[in-house]
């Protein structure tokens, strides 16, 4: 399996943790994985992006126009990283899963047309709202991941996501994280 993904969000949303889940899933399947993170002053800047390349790749960065998957934990960052998405290839659509404050917020109508032409499959949910309902605003990233993994076109199964999350979560947060995944799946 080969998959190139971008996870985009704002510092503090758990972009790094989401990326870790992907690398964990990949290594469980004996897949080579390369990822690239944002640190330091770049992280203070708010915009945080992780690149993930699963399968036989050499360089850690996804090239614009190559991403199979874009996971947007923040609506503005999701828009900003849209150029990474690839057009339909070999019958397979690129997938875009976004945490949007409302159904209409993503995608902006000025880019919706191009995305349609490119055949990008768009799934959005109000992960922040759901996380708030769970009184745990910091698990929005996992709500989104749970939601994403229940879509057909997501490269990993819900169970794979859950197992990886379980392994990576500290004891204190495990229950909350798994609940968030479950919540996302049900949306």
């Amino acid at each position, binding site marked *: 399996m080969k998959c190139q993904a971008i996870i985009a969000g704002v510092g503090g949303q758990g972009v790094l943790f989401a990326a870790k889940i992907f690398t964990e899933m990949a290594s469980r399947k004996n897949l080579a994985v390369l990822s690239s993170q944002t640190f330091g002053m770049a992280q203070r800047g708010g915009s945080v992006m992780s690149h993930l390349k699963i399968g036989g790749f050499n360089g850690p*960065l996804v090239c614009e126009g190559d991403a199979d998957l874009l996971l947007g934990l923040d609506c503005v960052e999701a828009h900003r990283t849209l150029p990474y998405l690839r057009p339909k290839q070999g019958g397979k659509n690129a997938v875009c899963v976004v945490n949007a404050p409302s159904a209409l917020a993503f995608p902006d109508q000025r880019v919706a047309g191009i995305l349609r032409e490119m055949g990008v499959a768009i799934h959005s949910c109000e992960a922040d709202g759901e996380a708030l309902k769970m009184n745990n605003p910091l698990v929005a990233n996992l709500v989104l991941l749970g939601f994403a993994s229940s879509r057909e076109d997501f490269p990993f199964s819900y169970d794979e996501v859950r197992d990886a999350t379980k392994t990576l979560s500290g004891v204190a947060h495990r229950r909350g994280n798994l609940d968030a995944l479950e919540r996302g799946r049900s949306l």
Partner: protein
Amino acid sequence: MLREEQKVDTKAPDYRVLLGNEAISRGLVEAGCQFIAAYPGTPSSEILPAVVKFKTELGVNLYAEWSTNEKVALETALAAAYSGKRAAVAMKQVGLNVAADPALSSAYIGVVGGLVLIVADDPGLHSSQTEQDSRLFALFSKIPALDPSMPQEAKEMVAQAFELSERYQIPVLLRPTVRVCHSEQLIDCKPVIAPFRTADFEKNPRRWAATPRARMQLHQQLVEKLAAIEKEFETWPGNHASFPRNGSPQRAPLGIVAAGVCYAYLNDLLHSLDLADRFPVLKIATAYPLPRALVGDFASRCERLLVLEETDATVELQIRLSIPVWGRLSAHVPSHGELTPEVLEKLLVAAAGEAGVAVNARAANGLRAAVAALELPVRRPTLCPGCGHRAVFYALRRAFPAAIFPGDIGCYTLGLNQGAVDTVQDMGASISMASGFYHAYAQDGKFPEIFATIGDGTFFHSGAAGLENAVYNGARFVLLVLDNGTTGMTGMQPTPEFGQTADGHSGGIVHLESLIRGCGIDYLAHADPHDLASFHRTLLDALNHTRAENGGIAVVIVRYSCVTHLKGLGPGRTATPVEVHHGLRPRSPGTATALDPQWMPRYVDRLSPCSEACPAGNDIERLMTLAAQGSWTEAARTLYEEHPFPSTLGRICPHPCESKCNRGAYDGALSINAIERLAGDRGRSAADFIAKAALVSKTVAVVGSGPSGLTAAYHLARRGYGVEIYEALPEIGGMLRWAIADYRLPPAVLQRELEVFGSLGVTVHTGVRLGTTMAWSELDRFDAVYLATGAWRQRRLNITGEDRDGVLSGLDYLYQVRAGQAPELGDRVAVIGGGNTAIDAARTAKRKRAEVHVYYDMLLAIPEEVAAARDEGIVFHHQVVPVMFEGGESRKLKLSLRDLALEKLKGAKNTPIFHTETSEADSVLVCIGGDADLAYLGLHEMTENGKLSVDPWGRTRDHRIFAGGDASSVGAGTVVDAINAGKRAALTIDERLSGKKLDAAAIQLAAGPGIAAAIAAGNIALCPSTRTGQAKSVPGPQSINMQFFRKAPRAESRHCTPNDSIWNFDEVNLGLGSDAAAAEARERCFHCGVCTHCDICLNVCPTAAITRVDGAYRIDSGKCTACRVCEAECPRGAISMPQTGVCIGCGYCTTWFECPSLKAGPDGLVDIDRRTCIDCGVCIQVCAQGAIRPRQAQTAELHQ
């Protein structure tokens, strides 16, 4: 040869997903590194902590230290390498600049144990100041450089580097770039392979301490080493060429040389562009010395070469061929910016095309352009919510908007966003630059405010050298050391401040304060920025130190925990949840300004509390302004507008102004009384220049020449009326002359003040008593009569023995002393009463050599007088009153006294049983007040309760007769109240006689007793501070920003010592010297409510809406956002602007406080983002409209 899909057996030992930096760390530990020294710097910071983690895991004896800077780190590690151990150093590219000195020297000297110098470059400037290429540095230093393309390769290169380093006895540079450092890859972790060594430093001064001659040999050896290394690199496994399999014998149109991470990108790119196996590719892992033969061989099979590498043209520069070499030098590759896959793709397609190779470029889909057109908000780096740095920079900028702010490197660099960082050069530069700025300006005789900021970590790194120099060369500036106890930006590494070492080995503490003082700093203060007002005060103190004559550099340590490190507010800080209030904004549609006009700022001078309190109507604020300049004559003239008695009042007034002085709430009220005295004493006499207005053909009679009558006469005569004074006593002055003792009011002083009546042409009749020696009918010729006959009839005690010989009226006694007819009092005198007359009588008796006792029920006299009397040895008996006087046994009189206080303790006051004691005295002076003697009124029905019945302006029922002072129902009690009465009467008499309506509201001084005669006379020039109108509000202490003012004690008048003064009637209170008085007025007067053009509003306005035009301030309503900061910052409440209490969307907080938790909505109104807010509460102090406030508990929370 392209890499195949990496197949890994994750069940076999030991594959882990590791960061590139962690892979390097793993490589170090596995290769037997025994010593590592590092300084944090993105993107290298993870290396050392990962080494510590692995060494613990593998149980390896490895010394790890965070060094204080990169130079120190390299020197430290070199010693280990000289001793034969494998050592490593890690830093970021600009850190190598700091370590340059040992790096260059060590190339010549070489090593014994291998030394790997790990330097992480940052193409793309994600967190650095330069995109410098450390491989070029290696070329410059003449040490080999290895350039890994992926984390796994970086790990493998560590062992190779050590081995190379030991074989050639030369340090080796390992140079990963940020994408290698911060990428994760599955890494093959192995056990430790290399043996460990013990330290064994073999002495060899010719090598280790080489002087220039020996160095020359070493250089020669170095050159030889490099040649040998280059030869070895020709067959280095990491360097390999691949050619297309169906290659034709002809030269390929384009061959690609790729080094480092570019090689990894290239592989993926060729694949995705469907160009795999189309181009010859030469991978270069050894960037210096470049294996030129290998490159030459490769090039012989190509028509031209394209060189792809980060960060600069290191490999490219070393290639000298006859075929074209494309790269940065030929502009085929951009010379700035990161070579990301997108950039590489573009340039590869272009180069291929140029070489004649058709390449199908990726189809454009316009998505990039469409996203750019969205104009998404740029998220710039910002401090974390609750960060203490934010409060510091906010306070700095607000207090000193015009200062120069040299800044430094760390999280606190982000003070940029708040306009409080002007320069960021390199580590530690803030201090040197502050020094440089100082000297550059001082050379021209200019001394701007300079506030430098540096973090604790940065200070330990390289601040001391700059500070030593600044002290040594005499610079002056304020340095703030922002001590959050950690090296924050790079990931919370420890600093020497707590002695916490990288791997827990025992370390020591470097005390920051001692280090700073050791640099020669005298002024070292501590501050907490979370209380902005007191922080402001501290900064002002520091600034003053830099300007003081014996001053110098001021260092302020600002200490708070890193909230991200602590994951919350630090110890000792309480969470203060806040909320932003939204509500109806006072803005009408179609208004051109931010808010409706009455909500916008206006300069409205207000009445100072001192002036409001003054019954004489003195313009005290103006008096202070003139006194500050030493303009005593002008000061006197201002006072003369209101009354002719500044020298008198400056000696005897109970100064209610000082009780209301706002400075009293800070460090002591202004010495207003003494300053008024000095104006009267020093200014020219009123007689010299108070002119009389044109004569009016109306006349006024003033009966009684006490302060009330005299003041009335003064104002009426000035207005041109013919004034005649009728005085019963031999000389004019009333209580001033006859009841107030010489030691308080010297006769010469009073005489000088009375001269003005002569020059005003006032006719004085003395020795004339109305109703006795003068009939009422004699007053018929006057158009108006002012009765000011005072209250001279001594009140009686109504006790037995009151009329005995030796019991005297205090008032009578004082008069007789003045008249030179004083009776002998004897040795022991009892004074009955607690008012000012009692004290005057007592102190006079003292000067007549008597032992004096004062018996009183209530002590109403001026406190200073009582204190002076006590100092002179007069004994006070509190709550003791006489009940009977009889003949005494040893003295003339025996007094029976009643102790009221004791009685209260024992029971009701009016019971027949009461405590008595007796005392003997030679004389008793009764001073329990006087009543008016109004017998002269005859048939005129104008009295009420024994006083002349008047309204507050002195009018009686008879429209021709006016009255005031002690004789009237309004009463006076003190001289200054009498002056007020006389002034009011004069103005109403003028109104009556001239027919011109008196605008009482215009001259009323707010809610005070006094009125402003200057305003009534239309003398605006003499009182520029607009004091008119009763509606004017008066600022209390809370409207003064005390932090702008240095504490300074109040100037106190000098006094004769009691031991000297009791022997005569010379003046006891000697007042202030004119310099001291001027300094008091100049340095300490707040000028409450009056604009003094200090320019603070102009400087602090965030939108530069305030300008000064012809000395007056103008607010540009187009620029004013109604943030209200000018009102908040005005030190003295001279700006009037009501507070809305709701967010008006002015943008002030988001611009200058700039906290991510303060989010503006699309309507510009701000709300708290509770997900990120950590409740530090500082923003409450930011909003001058009062919209940000502590959150009220919700009812639901209350019920929990």
